């Protein structure tokens, strides 16, 4: 086998492997999508049917029963609101830890990450009581605050990893030109880090969009996001897979489209090392 052939074979095997993984990951979404066009009886048929007469009944049922726009607006407000808030807190925090690290910076970073190791249910009762006492139950404000706190460690870590790889000489040069710390952040670091910030923001939005534990626990109707809408289609007594799939498809659609448009930034950000 020539070197060229070996290289082609290697590319083929790598491609095949990547496609297999991608298809495995995509399969549940594909299945959810086609199930949403089946009748309830077709949805539970064994063996499952791939070829069937599609119906839009499930979508019209979801439209009739749920206020999709209301839930979607709640999802947008809470996921975008909390991401913006998290970035406002995380950018200066990551900047200071990356460019002016102290003795305990590593410990602080580890401590922040350790909060992610606590199961959410462990703090359910105190958070529920706080929300009740401050009148925040079933409010978007509560979700924005909780989502911000939930994602802050990840956002700080991602930005810190990026900032620490930025050459310090750039900041020194800015300082030589009379830049204040504010100028350093706004005029130097932020423009250099737009890719990383975008991908961090995207990840945070996706995590908030898909969050269900707090959404279901702290909301009832006014602030209920799309995850709460999906949950309402699960039934203890009766067939529900087709309608649940339609609700899930509608709930996933905005974030999938959004992710599709932003995939360049997402991939770039997730694979970042700082200066390329």
């Amino acid at each position, binding site marked *: 086998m020539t070197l060229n052939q070996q290289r082609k074979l290697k590319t083929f095997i790598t491609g095949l492997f990547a496609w297999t993984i991608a298809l495995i990951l995509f399969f549940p979404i594909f299945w959810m999508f086609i199930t949403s066009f089946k009748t309830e*009886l077709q949805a539970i048929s064994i063996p499952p049917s791939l070829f069937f007469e599609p119906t839009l009944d499930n979508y019209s049922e979801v439209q009739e029963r749920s206020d999709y726009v209301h839930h979607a607006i709640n999802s947008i407000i809470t996921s975008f609101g909390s991401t913006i808030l998290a970035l406002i807190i995380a950018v200066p925090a990551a900047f200071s830890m990356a460019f002016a690290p102290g003795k305990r910076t590593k410990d602080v970073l580890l401590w922040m990450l350790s909060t992610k190791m606590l199961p959410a249910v462990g703090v359910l009762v105190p958070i*529920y009581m706080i929300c009740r006492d401050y009148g925040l139950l079933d409010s978007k404000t509560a979700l924005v605050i909780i989502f911000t706190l939930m994602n802050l460690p990840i956002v700080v870590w991602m930005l810190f990893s990026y900032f620490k790889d930025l050459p310090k000489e750039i900041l020194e040069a800015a300082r030589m030109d009379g830049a204040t710390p504010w100028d350093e952040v706004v005029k130097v670091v932020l423009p250099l880090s737009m890719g990383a910030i975008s991908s961090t923001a995207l990840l945070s939005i996706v995590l908030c969009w898909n969050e269900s534990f707090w959404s*279901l626990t702290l909301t*009832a109707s006014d602030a209920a996001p799309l995850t709460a809408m999906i949950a*309402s289609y699960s039934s203890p007594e*009766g067939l529900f897979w087709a309608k649940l799939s339609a609700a899930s498809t509608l709930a996933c659609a905005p974030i999938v489209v959004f992710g599709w448009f932003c995939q360049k930034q997402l991939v770039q950000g997730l694979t970042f090392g700082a200066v390329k």
Partner: protein
Amino acid sequence: MKRLMKNTIACAVSAAASMTAFTAFADTEITVATVNNGHMIEMQKLTPAFEEANPGIKVKWVTLEENVLRQNVTQDIANKSGLYDVMTIGMYEAPIWGQRGWLQAVNTSGDYDANDILPSIRDGLSYDGTMYAAPFYGESSMVMYRKDLVKEAGMEINDRDSWEHIRDVAAAVNDPSKGIYGICLRGKAGWGDNMALVTTIANSFGARWFDEEWKPQLESAEWTNAVNFYVDLLSKYGPPGSSSNSFNESLALFNEGKCGMWIDATIAASFVTDPKQSKVADQVGFAQSPISVTEKGANWLWAWSLGIPAATKNADAAQKFVRWATSKEYIELVGETNGWAAVPTGTRASTYANPKFQEAAVFAEAELKAINSANPNDSTLKPSPYVGVQFAAIPEFQAIGTTTGQMISGSLAGSMTVEEALKSANKSADRQMRRARYY
């Protein structure tokens, strides 16, 4: 300038007046938490009729998955959060929460006709003679079977057959090579899943959850015999993976024509006889639940009901809604709107006396018989201190029932023997009861 002042004052006064008027006629909004069951969804769709009859009251719906609903409403009611004005609860919660003062008594005065509610259902939702939740639909358990398969196998199924006979029928019908299994039963762990059925089997084998001193009895010979029978029956003649099947999974299998028999909630009767949902709709027969040494507690009793939390700020509107949704008039409305086969059953005697319902629902007689035969106050052969057929209405039961369900599901999956499962469950139950200072 004076004129401007005058106009401003006039505007302010008229604005204040209109604000007052707005406040006086402002809508009362009530939030109803419920599960995604067919009957509940119909209620949601028919709510405009209530709003029309009660101008000034608006109804907001929160539909949740059953476990999430339980968690949320318990949290809401225990913390007096006031998120919900009406909540869907079951027969387990109503007496316990009523006793604790967490629920308002249902206003049964006037034309509500509480005497029309089936006595067993009314008793199950009451504490000390006061009804703390109004039944929306009720259910018991019964045998649903394939008449064609049973006949083909040369067998018969009748009311109150013995469990041994049911096993023989299951063996005769069982033909996995054709994708037909003798019997489908719940196996998924949970106090409301496998334990609902297993408790009724155990009751009929003469078992009880606790003795008169509240000591768990799971290691008794009756429990051992009952669970051994259940595990053996389902392992030999049940579909593969039974340990993860509950109501919906069994419903799917039955509707697909893969079960010879299915013993489960009577509410399933309306699904398995509906040609839109079931491939075997015209072949389904019904019989009363099987028994072993006693009929007591051989079929369960449950009612999805509407309760009003004590902390609600809209008690009057909530009472009006609950009375409407659980009234004879509501059942009439559903019957006339969606057909009599679709009405919520298991609550009122008048429903079963209605000729239109009798004609539309082939399962009506069997369902009523099953509900009437269940007595939550006398469900065990030996005396027991608790109320409830497939559960014991004490706060500790959820944890005890679920742990026991996990052990029995484990033995069904083959990870431990029945004896080991019951020993472990009994130990855990004993710990719970001691901690709660029952003894």
